[in-house]
Structures are given as structure tokens and as C-alpha cells.
């Protein structure tokens, strides 16, 4: 299982996103590889799930990979509710 955390440049928001994803996975006792990416690389990088904001989700919709759209990058509750069903279901 590979989760791609995507932001514009791959140096800020996506790193914050990765921390929130890893916290939620750890709390649920789940393991996955979490990789950060800028939006350009994300168009071709292999992944099972993409986690990003609504604007980038629109640019990645044609990839056919499940996308988790996050509003608050540090909200564990939001991440848990949106991400875990996809991790558990795969």
C-alpha cells in the first residue's frame, strides 16, 4: 500500500499531510508507505491512494486512483474518517 501526499512543491504542505496520515495510520495499527510529491511528479508517480487538497484533486482526477480530499491538513479526525475506509478496504 502506497499513499501519495501531494502539494504544489513538495516541501511544506505535503510534509504536514504526511505527518497527519502517519499519525492516523499508527493510531489505527495500520502500515503503509507514505510518500510526498509535488503536483507535477504526482501526475505520473505510482500510488494506491492520493491525499491532497481540492484544487490538486481536480488536476489528478483523470489518474483513476482513489483521491482523499483534505480541507484541514492537521485534523486527524477528518483524515481518519476520509482515509481509513480506503486503507482498510484495499
Amino acid at each position, binding site marked *: 500500500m502506497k499513499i501519495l501526499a501531494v502539494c*504544489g512543491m513538495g516541501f511544506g*504542505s505535503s510534509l504536514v499531510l504526511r505527518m497527519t496520515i502517519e499519525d492516523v495510520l499508527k493510531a489505527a495499527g495500520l502500515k503503509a508507505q507514505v510518500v510526498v510529491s509535488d503536483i507535477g511528479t504526482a501526475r505520473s508517480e505510482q500510488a494506491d491512494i492520493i491525499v491532497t487538497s481540492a484544487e490538486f484533486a481536480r488536476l489528478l482526477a483523470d489518474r483513476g486512483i482513489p483521491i482523499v480530499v483534505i480541507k484541514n491538513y492537521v485534523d*486527524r479526525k477528518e483524515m481518519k474518517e476520509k482515509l481509513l475506509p480506503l486503507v482498510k478496504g484495499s
Partner: protein
Amino acid sequence: MASSEAPFQLKDLLTPATIRLHVAASDPGQVIREAGQLLLASGAIEERYIEAMQQALQTYGPYMVIVPGVALLHARPSDGVKRPCISLLTLEPPVPFGNEDNDPVKIAIAFGAVDRQKHLQALTMLTQLLANEQALSAIQASTSAEEVMHIIAAASPA
């Protein structure tokens, strides 16, 4: 561990000199200029980094408001970052960035990274701070940079 290898703590990068409170900015461009000036004055970036942050906001849009009321502003290491750095502004009044979920911005944090690693420890502590609504409210109400440093130290124990 050699000192050059030691990770930067948040308090190493965000200092009273890179904090400005109750800044009156008319738009996101002015917020970036003010936050960037603090980094420039600290000698951590070249002037072109400020323009690169403006470009990043235009190119990628207001997703940079990643938490309700907080914008995380930055560009790339290659845009003129000399060393890892962070600045923080509280905005009075709050400034809309065009993010329908998380506007308006009350706290703007700008940073410069040299790679994906050296600022990671500080960013981890910053993430803890951003998840702490009480601490964010206290920062908005702060009247001195020292007070902000105290709140951050209490919210993100090293």
C-alpha cells in the same frame, strides 16, 4: 552527531526577530512581502525568494491556507534559500486568500527549506502547533514576540 547534522528545532528557526504581530495587510501579496521581509532581514534568503513565494501562490492557488485561519507560505529551495528559516505574522484584520474552507487568514507562516529533511523537525513541531486551536488563539491575542515564543514552547515540547 556533528552539530551540522543536528535537526533544527522550531525555536532555532522562528525567533523574536522573525515574528511580527498585528500586521495590517490589504491582500495576500502584501502578507507575503511582509513575511518575506522578515526572512530577508535575517539573512536566510535572497530577495528573489519573496517573488518566488508570490509566484507560488499565483501558480498553485490558495491551498496554502492548510488549516482554518493559517497560511503556510513558501517557494522552493532553489528559489534563493540560504538556510532553513521561518517567519510568523498575525494579521489584523484577517486577510482572505480565496480558500473557501479555511479563509480568512489570521496567522501567516512563511518558511524557506534547503531540502526535504533539514526543516522537518521544525515542521513537525509546527504541525503540532497548527493542530492546537487554543495555542493558535493565544498567538493571535499575543502582544509581544516573546509571548508567542512562550506559547510555542509550551505547545510543542522538544
